[in-house]
């Protein structure tokens, strides 16, 4: 099958003179054209580090390993001047804090036009015209081209940032918790917008969130991360009907769901392991209710188990097996 992005054994290690923290411990996934892949996990699981590594926007203390191909080009080893031709033009990213992603001293219009002038060498006037149509596309009145970020609401700022990211028509858009700071109604607006953009431009999306129910609304497939590794990948429906990894099961049991009267929520005792360096064996073993001898010896690989699913667990079969 055609792949727009394929990531192989991606590693991110943050080095200081004293320690080396392996934030991402070797993850692989791929993205089909027009696909929305969710990256789920709790704080510190490495989801943002992995995304930032693909954009090559990590600080110098971060060491990146593995390979990532966009349209045949391996981007993790590209020199910076080559990467700057790919960043925003082939792969773009939207962040949680739209306020911080915008320059408070420049108008919205200028900031959307800027990538067009820099990367595609549009003359100023044409770039501003294009910015106006991009603004309209994300449903902001083009009259607001001359507004400054502080004049927009939180939801509009995030739309403006999406317009900036889309200016150069990238193939892949990474959305890193883009609605976490927003109200639910605005969140729903943004989700709908992203889906439309996918349908219209065939954009491929990596959507990062800690909120599994939200991911269920937008993603075709979901990859669940824990302690720097992907522990389970599955089509969205299958993941919710039959989570296979013990961590995914626990996580789904911990969520409050409308209309489901739970007496108690699942909790996961303990805390994720320190990753400097990561412990041997399965990283979830100390908190797992299905732990066995094999779990303490080696990290189980992420292996295909049928129906487009992969899981990294020695004991995933447990009581139920996907039919």
């Amino acid at each position, binding site marked *: 099958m055609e792949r727009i992005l394929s990531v192989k054994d991606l590693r991110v290690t943050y080095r200081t003179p004293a320690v080396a923290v392996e934030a991402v411990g070797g993850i692989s996934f791929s993205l089909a054209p027009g696909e929305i892949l969710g990256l789920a996990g*709790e*704080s510190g699981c490495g989801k943002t580090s992995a995304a930032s590594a693909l954009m090559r926007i990590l600080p110098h203390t971060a060491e990146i390993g593995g390979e990532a191909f966009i349209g045949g080009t391996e981007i993790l080893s590209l020199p910076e001047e080559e990467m700057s031709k790919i960043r925003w033009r082939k792969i773009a990213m939207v962040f949680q804090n739209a306020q911080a992603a915008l320059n408070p001293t420049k108008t919205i219009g200028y900031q959307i036009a800027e990538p067009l002038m820099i990367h595609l060498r549009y003359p100023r006037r044409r770039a501003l015209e294009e910015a106006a149509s991009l603004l309209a596309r994300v*449903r902001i009145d083009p009259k607001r081209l001359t507004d400054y970020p502080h004049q927009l*609401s939180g*939801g*509009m700022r995030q739309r403006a940032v999406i317009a900036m990211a889309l200016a150069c028509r990238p193939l892949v858009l990474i959305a890193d918790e883009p609605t976490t700071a927003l*109200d*639910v*109604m*605005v*969140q*729903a*607006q943004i989700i*709908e917008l992203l889906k439309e953009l996918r349908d219209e431009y065939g954009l491929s999306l990596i959507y990062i969130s*800690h*909120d*599994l*129910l*939200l991911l*269920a*609304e937008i993603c075709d497939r979901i990859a669940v991360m824990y302690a720097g590794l992907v522990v389970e990948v599955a089509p969205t429906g299958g993941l919710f009907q039959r989570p296979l990894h013990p961590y995914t099961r*626990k*996580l789904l*049991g*911990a*969520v*409050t*769901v*409308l*209309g489901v*009267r*739970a007496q*108690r*929520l*699942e*909790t*996961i005792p303990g*805390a994720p392991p320190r990753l400097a360096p990561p412990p041997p064996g399965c990283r979830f073993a100390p908190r797992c209710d299905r732990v066995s001898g094999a779990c303490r010896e080696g990290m189980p690989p992420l292996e295909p188990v049928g129906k487009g699913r992969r899981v990294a667990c020695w004991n995933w079969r447990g009581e139920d097996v996907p039919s």
Partner: protein
Amino acid sequence: MSLLEVRELTVAYPVAVGLSAFFSRRYLVAVDHVSFSLPEGGTLALVGESGCGKSSTGLAVLGLLEHVEGEVLFRGRDVLRMREKERREFRRHAQIVFQDPYESLNPKMRVRTIVGEPLAIHRRRGETGRLKEALELAGLSPPEYFLDKYPHELSGGERQRVAIAAAVVLQPKLLILDEPVSNLDVSIKAGIMNLFRDLQDQLGLSYLFITHDLADAFFLADEVAVMYLGVAVEKGETDEVLSHPLHPYTEALLSVAPGSGREKLILAGDVPDPLHPPPGCRFHPRCPRARGRCSEEVPPEVEAAPGHRVRCFYVSRGERDPHLEEPKPIH
């Protein structure tokens, strides 16, 4: 009997905009004639988006705000009109847990001091037994391990448990929970939500649970009040309101909650500026059901079903009223 009875509560904040600050005082009305009651041992959730007035309501109930009108009756006595001595006694019975345990705990204090402070203020110093008991109740066990820690030595979940221990150490009757789990990871949040259940069972606490998350309200609350721009637009038993929403705002809010399984009713635009709220029903500019009357008159609160109150002229009753036009397209 109700532990807490709030009647026509109105909260305003003075705002100074340019020269107007010198000439006339303007007020932003954050909470507009909100009424509700909370039975002993019960939980009421105040639900709504940012700026709807839910937190202001919580603070006003504790008597922490100025420019408040209406009545806040705690066991029949009006908190807003209490004298100092009585108010002090009330404060012993009513405590609050805030959203962010990274900011609500003093970083220079040890757990011992943070949780002991309410005891000291209410002249119950030296009751280490109480202190340990509170930590134990909040799930911080063994308490000795935590007593001499500073907040930075604890995880987010542990910090929130410290805040909860400090809130229950005086054996209060009422806890205001102001978005207490919104900054926590899923697995940690679940533990805190379970803890609230347990504490209620053990101590008979009443909760005023302030949240933007309908699913959390559904988990914890017996009753719910949905707020929009300072107005409680719909109130009733949680199951009833969430399964048969009557107000168009509640319907929309419910439909966009992830995992609701409902058809999405996405409202366009943003909540209007609270300094210039729309006339009539405050929701009318975004309402798919709005008609002429809605922009002129404020809809009164009506009891549409037993215990289920709503402020809307055109209440939905599960199915669409055939006399109404089709709802406007959302965008």
